[in-house]
């Protein structure tokens, strides 16, 4: 049942990304290009998503999920160097291609070659970061 819910949520997420234009890097780059021919689409996507998710998250705060024991939600609130550095590095990559992880997966069926190339390098980058993280915490001991 949790699998069915996750698949449905994925389907809804992918549908939202596709009809909103977020799956199209040209639209995303058009938003990030403030001094060019600015395309506000991403702003409306964020407004639509947050208009639902903000009240929903507040309403569900601390509630037991229907199909799980507890909510698995990050509990940290400290702003540390990995967070800032990671967000900055992510921002450079996002600005270079206009693709972030969600749209990368959703565009797989539309542009298989480019999407695969991006997803494989993204996966390598993720594993690299985890390896670096382990080495640093290992040498600190």
């Amino acid at each position: 049942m949790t699998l069915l819910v996750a698949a449905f949520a994925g389907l809804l997420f992918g549908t939202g990304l596709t009809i909103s234009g977020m799956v199209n890097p040209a639209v995303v780059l058009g938003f990030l290009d403030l001094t060019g021919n600015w395309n506000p689409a991403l702003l409306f996507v964020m407004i639509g998503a947050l208009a639902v998710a903000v009240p929903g998250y507040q309403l569900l705060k601390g509630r037991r999920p229907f199909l799980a024991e507890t909510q698995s939600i990050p509990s940290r609130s400290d702003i540390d160097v990995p967070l800032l550095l990671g967000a900055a590095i992510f921002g450079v990559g996002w600005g270079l291609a206009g693709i972030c992880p969600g749209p990368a997966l959703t565009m797989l069926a539309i542009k298989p070659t480019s999407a695969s190339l991006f997803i494989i390098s993204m996966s390598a980058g993720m594993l690299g970061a985890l390896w670096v993280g382990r080495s640093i915490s290992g040498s600190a001991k």
Partner: protein
Amino acid sequence: MTESSVILPLAGGVMIGVAALILLAFNGRVMGVSGIWSGLIRWSDGPGWRLAFVLGSITAPLGLALLGRPGDVQIETTAPMLIVAGLLVGFGSALGAGCTSGHGICGMSRFSPRSIVATLVFMAVAIVTVFLVRHVG
């Protein structure tokens, strides 16, 4: 105010928000795609819900194409640049523990200070990057 410039982005955004709430209300999970994908490739606890979510999101444009609304994808980035961008997006989202969906939507919605800061940082850096690439480089 055309359909594709306002209504569809708003409607798509609402769908993304509802998807995040469904995942939280039923499974108690955060809809952060970078975390979902890195958990999947590390095979941390078998395929499970992460694979189901990914398959759902990959299938979505196929369903829309059947309904006569295939997604438009224009990529002008060269292959080497796609690889560099992918490496940076993967490395950065793993180090910063989140991406546009996890920090930008779920984290912002629960007013997480980490997510608000991360979202402001990656938005600002991406805007500067696009400026440098398009108007300076």
